[in-house]
């Protein structure tokens, strides 16, 4: 909103008494924004075509430079969509029941013998279990090497890094999102990012692959109850001098057919390592009565 518009708007407010202030506040209800949560989730204007609106448990458009967070039930499907080709979904997942169990990026790359995230890739905790599995992926450009941005990095790259300003750092957003689940700054580990990729060249340097373009999506399944934190900020290796990040769409849903991975799924036996990770996960869930 332009400054002139804002001043004009302020002049329109009548807030001299409590009753007038109440009327003024209530008159603001019912508006829509390009970035907002949709409640109930079934009211989402962007419900994926193949998903029944009534099954949605989370529907939101995350602002450029914004963050969101949610606790998801086991078996929930989570779809992240990049409507402009400019989103970058820095993501952390934790076992919601015991958040000391959290995404371990090193194991996530090492155990599957694969550095690049894609369909079928498990997001592993440090406790030998699968927190979430990537089910589908139409982007192919993600990253588990570089993590998210820090204030020091953004100050260097963009000349500013204030969380309330035009170049917020992903870590600072993660710290706030984590705080809302009782977690402190020490609980923000290395993260993965979706929709903006790098590749490692033969000499070890990172090649910027960037985006696959507008309209791609990744879909994950929660293998355990999850705390999900998402910061939508530029990838730290984004080469542009501008701080450009697009809105991010988030939808999650649950139906009688949405299960965590079981031995009946082909991906359960995709490799001996991942099979044992799923066995560990099912063992944990069974013992806890999940």
């Amino acid at each position, binding site marked *: 909103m332009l400054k002139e518009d804002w001043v004009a708007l302020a002049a329109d407010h009548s807030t001299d008494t409590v009753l007038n202030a109440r009327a003024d506040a209530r008159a603001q209800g019912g508006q829509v924004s390009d970035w907002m949560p949709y409640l109930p989730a079934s009211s989402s204007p962007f419900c994926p075509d193949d998903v029944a609106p009534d099954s949605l448990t989370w529907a939101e458009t995350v602002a450029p*430079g*914004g963050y969101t967070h949610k606790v998801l039930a086991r078996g929930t499907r989570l779809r992240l969509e990049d409507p402009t080709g400019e989103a970058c979904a820095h993501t952390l997942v934790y076992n919601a029941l015991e958040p000391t169990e959290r995404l371990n990026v090193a194991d996530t790359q090492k155990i599957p013998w694969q550095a690049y995230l894609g369909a079928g890739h498990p997001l592993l905790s440090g406790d030998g279990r699968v927190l979430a599995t990537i089910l589908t992926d139409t982007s192919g450009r993600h990253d588990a090497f570089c993590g998210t941005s820090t204030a020091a990095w953004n100050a260097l790259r963009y000349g500013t890094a204030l969380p309330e300003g035009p170049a917020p750092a992903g870590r600072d957003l993660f710290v706030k999102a984590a705080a809302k689940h009782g977690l*402190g700054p020490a609980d923000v580990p290395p993260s993965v990012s979706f929709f903006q990729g790098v590749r490692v060249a033969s000499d070890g340097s990172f090649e910027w692959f960037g985006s696959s373009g507008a309209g791609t999506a990744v879909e994950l399944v929660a293998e355990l109850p999850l705390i999900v934190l998402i910061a939508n900020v530029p990838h730290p290796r984004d080469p542009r001098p501008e701080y450009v990040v697009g809105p991010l769409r988030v939808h999650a849903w649950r139906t009688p057919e949405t299960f965590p991975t079981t031995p009946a799924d082909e991906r359960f036996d995709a490799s001996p390592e991942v099979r044992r990770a799923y066995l560990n996960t099912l063992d944990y869930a069974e013992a806890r009565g999940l």
Partner: protein
Amino acid sequence: MTTTIDNPVMMPVTTVPVPTTTYLTPDGQLISSVPVGASYADNTHLEWGDPLVPGAVVLDEQVAPRASWSGVVRAGQVLTIVDVGGNQSGDCLLYNAHHTDERYSAQDTLAWQDNAYIRTGTVLRSNLGRALMTVVENEIDRQDTIGGACSRESNTLRYGHHVMYHHGCRENFLTEGAKHGLGMRDIVSNINWFMNVPVEEDGALGIVDGMSAPGKRVALRAEIDTLVLISNCPQMNNPCNDFNPTPLRMIVSEPDTDLEYEADS
């Protein structure tokens, strides 16, 4: 905007332009797609003021509109807060600087003084009932400690879900608190310097037009070493900043002489 990078999934790579704005930075400008909230209008009258008590200035800092700030005021020092643009809520939390489990308690502060408003002489008490700071000078009729802080989440209750991505004071408290090892459990009911929250005869309570003006000040003497957190309220939906977020000035001074004050208790 298109790129020509080879891509096994989608050819050619086409992105949808994202609207951007040019923002000023300390060293220049930045083009960014982040929807940063409003700041004060160019024609806003600003009064930067001076310390309210005579003495050597040991710290003098500006808090930008929407920003957070923190600092330790040593026992005996006086913190002057200047409402530079007028009616700009400075949301404020206080902690024992050496043991932050002891922190500001709005309820103890009000109960001890038997009054719902902060005025000159109010002792700002901790959750242990001890004095953290004393209001030694105050240039507006009454200061608020009932109205609490705005947040992304409570804004959705007040105004609707469309404001979820507006910046809020609880975000500032989390940002600033994290620098001192403080988290969610450390954010308690706060003080709102220069904000007006009357309790009317029938119990109606809410934030209404302020009674402050550019350059109005309040001065707080630290009784113990006190960590002060400030959120310069970015609220764009109520009159806690006249719908025009302006700067605050924080001045810490060593007073020349012991200040006399009238404490209610």
